[in-house]
């Protein structure tokens, strides 16, 4: 049987972290009474016009720069038409012809063979990043055969990040999205929490034989976590391979991932090929961005976005942070990945290192093996840890000064975890875990044991 090459591309929608919406002044907030965060424009009442939010443009520029894109100094807005109850205008304002950023790349790392010790770096090309509006939310009430519509989300700014089909499996897709998530969170351009719908991923999957043209692709939607993304992609690859090996064909369709059953199913409401009738958004002139060279002389600073100014102020991206951790503390690259993968863990580690004489290379073991496993066992975040960096540093100092053994230290750690407010020293005294240093005392004990043996 000839081998199959799976091909995976991703379309990622990241909600922009801003106070107000992309084209209106209503608030952006996750949970709020239905239709309370909706302006007349968001409800598409006649006579209203879109007014572009500066912060959303900056967020898109930051993200484009972080992903090594070319920023288009002139980009355009378009209307994408389709009918749905949660799209009151009957069209979405997006950037179809000339998006704000193009031709970037994202590097991500994978562990080979599930061993953290061997990591390989891969790259996925970023086709483009475009600004667009989010739609409202539909709640399906099947019993009463109706849909309830909440427009709070309608008009919230989105960045659509299109990743080229450079990935080949669920693991790669998941790793790429995880890295993008970390980048967005570091930039602050999106909080990218998938559970709150701030990061939504659609996967495009196809398979083909080497040397042959790409196969028909399907689009997989309704993926609610990074774990499910990997599952959905791998399932769809398998499904397509089995279908083709059994002589079937793949339809160019949209499928939904069913997380309960772990499979993809055709989506019913997609009526054939959509004709979106793209047209230029007549109410918005082109979006012009500047850099240091092209900045006009007499300008109103509030009305101008300077790409170079934004570039200079970009924070250290995760990849740079990891390198710095490895260089500064002598830890392994895979350690730096784990540190950044857990919110607040890198800061915790650095805080402990500052407060202890123990070498960072030894501290890291305590952070990754002890602290992290306890956190995972109890489903706690670093912020919620009953063991603070101060307490851990205190404990490690006792160990470093050889006042306790490492076995004893582990016991103290377990006790600290109870969060009863005792210091490491107090626990050591309570449980009599001190290492004896006194030569005479040790001799006496040994002698007593030997004497005891002789008497038997």
């Amino acid at each position, binding site marked *: 049987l000839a081998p199959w090459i799976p091909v995976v591309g991703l379309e990622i929608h990241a909600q922009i972290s*801003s*106070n*107000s919406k992309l084209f*209106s*002044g*209503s*608030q952006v907030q996750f949970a709020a*009474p*239905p*239709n*309370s*965060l*909706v*302006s*007349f*424009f968001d*409800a598409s*009442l006649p006579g209203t016009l879109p*007014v*572009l*939010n*500066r*912060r*959303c*443009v900056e967020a898109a520029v930051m993200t484009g720069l972080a992903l090594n894109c070319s920023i288009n100094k002139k980009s*355009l807005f378009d209307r994408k*038409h389709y*009918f*749905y*109850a949660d799209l009151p205008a009957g069209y979405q304002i997006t950037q179809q012809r000339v998006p704000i950023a193009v031709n970037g790349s994202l590097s991500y790392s994978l562990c080979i063979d599930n061993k953290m010790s061997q990591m390989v770096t891969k790259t996925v090309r970023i086709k483009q990043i475009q600004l667009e509006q989010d739609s409202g939310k*539909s*709640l*399906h*009430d*099947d019993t009463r*055969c*109706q*849909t*309830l*519509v*909440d*427009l709070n989300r309608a008009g919230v700014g989105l960045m659509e990040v299109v990743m080229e089909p450079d990935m080949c499996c669920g693991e790669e897709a998941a790793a790429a999205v995880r890295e993008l998530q970390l980048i967005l969170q570091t930039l602050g351009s999106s909080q990218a929490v998938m559970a709150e719908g701030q990061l939504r991923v659609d996967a495009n999957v196809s398979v083909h034989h080497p040397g042959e043209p790409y196969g028909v692709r399907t689009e997989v939607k309704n993926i609610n976590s990074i774990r499910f993304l990997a599952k959905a992609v791998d399932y769809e690859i398998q499904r397509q391979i089995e279908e083709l090996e059994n002589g079937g064909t793949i339809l160019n369709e949209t499928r939904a991932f069913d997380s309960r059953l772990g499979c993809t199913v055709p989506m019913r*409401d997609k*009526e054939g090929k959509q*004709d979106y*009738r793209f047209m*230029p958004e*007549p*109410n*918005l*002139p*082109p*979006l*012009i961005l500047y850099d240091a060279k092209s900045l006009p002389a007499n300008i109103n600073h*509030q*009305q101008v*976005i300077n790409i170079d100014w934004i570039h200079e102020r970009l924070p250290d991206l995760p990849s740079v942070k990891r390198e710095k951790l490895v260089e500064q503390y002598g830890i392994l690259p895979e350690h730096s990945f784990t540190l950044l993968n857990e919110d607040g863990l890198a800061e915790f580690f650095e805080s402990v290192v500052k407060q202890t004489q123990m070498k960072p290379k030894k501290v890291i073991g305590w952070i990754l093996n002890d602290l992290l496993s306890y956190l995972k066992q109890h489903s706690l975040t670093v912020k919620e840890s009953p063991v603070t960096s101060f307490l851990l540093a205190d404990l490690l100092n006792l160990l470093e000064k050889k006042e306790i053994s490492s076995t004893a230290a582990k016991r103290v750690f377990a006790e600290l975890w109870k969060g009863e407010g005792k210091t490491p020293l107090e626990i050591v005294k309570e449980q009599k875990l001190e290492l004896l240093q006194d030569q005479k005392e040790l001799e006496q004990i040994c002698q007593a044991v030997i004497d005891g043996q002789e008497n038997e």
Partner: protein
Amino acid sequence: QKVSVEVLDHLEHLALVDFRDSEGVERLQKAIEFADQLHEVNTDGVEPMDSVLEDRCLYLREDDVTEGNCTKELLENAREKVEEYFVAPPGNIPLPKLEE
């Protein structure tokens, strides 16, 4: 060149317009012929203008919350509502296909 039934059907679905009778279709056809006159102009090497606003400045708004909180007013327009939600049919209701 006549507009085919398939195209008419497609247009009616996309734009929710109703060409109704043969007079409507005639009018559509005449409108297309009228617009086709644009093809007589040689536009080689001319950058398309897609908006008369192309030389205008796109105004950038500060990221402040200035609107919203008008649930009651918005819902006044709704024929049906359920606890501050708008009510819609369960999905798009497919238009019947044209017979002719």
